[in-house]
């Protein structure tokens, strides 16, 4: 599998490690009223789709960036690769 890194171009997937669902970016507010339920949901309850899935990959043997990779879990086709920092910023996180 080749991951087309937004900065470095196509790189072999062996250089990356996989974390999981890209929704892990949206960490619940620990001070929120429903924090316990929200963290239970965040930590344990995940979809396991047969098809397109947005997931977090870490470029461990490269520039050490976190990526959001949109991958088809049935075919391993990758349709989109973004820097996780860009994704978080687009959601209004950080700067």
């Amino acid at each position: 599998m080749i991951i087309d890194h937004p900065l470095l171009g196509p790189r072999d997937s062996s250089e990356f490690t996989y974390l999981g669902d890209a929704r892990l970016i949206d960490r619940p507010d620990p001070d929120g009223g429903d924090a316990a339920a929200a963290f239970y949901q965040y930590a344990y309850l995940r979809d396991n789709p047969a098809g397109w899935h947005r997931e977090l990959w870490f470029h461990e043997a490269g520039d050490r960036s976190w990526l959001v990779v949109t991958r088809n879990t049935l075919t391993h086709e990758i349709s989109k690769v973004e820097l996780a920092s860009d994704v978080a910023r687009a959601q209004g996180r950080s700067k």
Partner: protein
Amino acid sequence: MLELTPKPAIDAPDQTIGTVTIAQNTGVALASVAARKGQLAACEKTLNTRLGAVPQVGKAVSGKVETGFWTGAEQWMISAPEDSHEDLAEQWKRVLGAAASVTEQSGGWVVFDVSGANMPAMCELLCSVPIRKMETGDVQRTMIHQLGCFVICCDAGKHIRILGPRASALSLHHALTAAATSVA
């Protein structure tokens, strides 16, 4: 006064195997520079002043004395001769102040210079960098025998510099000599 010199990472003489020469370079001072949030412009200004240009993605820039290469988004590694720049990290920290996190790296890495006609063939055995496509000044981080290393193309097709973890210097040296023997 005692003449003190730092102990090298490993006690290995320069070695020529076939056409490939593997030499530990003990004279490189290193420091990493990482721009703090929103301080990219300030860092780029300093890089411009000291190196002559800002190293772009996957590239190195050689200034008069110091060399810098891109290691990640808004991060660079700076190198200079150890003799004159033992306090490299301090020098950069003085200039950059709160604009960047500067960390001394000299003690963390072992530096090998690999040169010779068969270097590309040897490099292909070691790691997945596209060595025959790399131009002088290209830099890539990669895995060599499970070790995260930087491969810097110093002279395309002839000379690469490999920065690897100092704690695994002997393992890396073994990997290099084994690959050189294989292509000799």
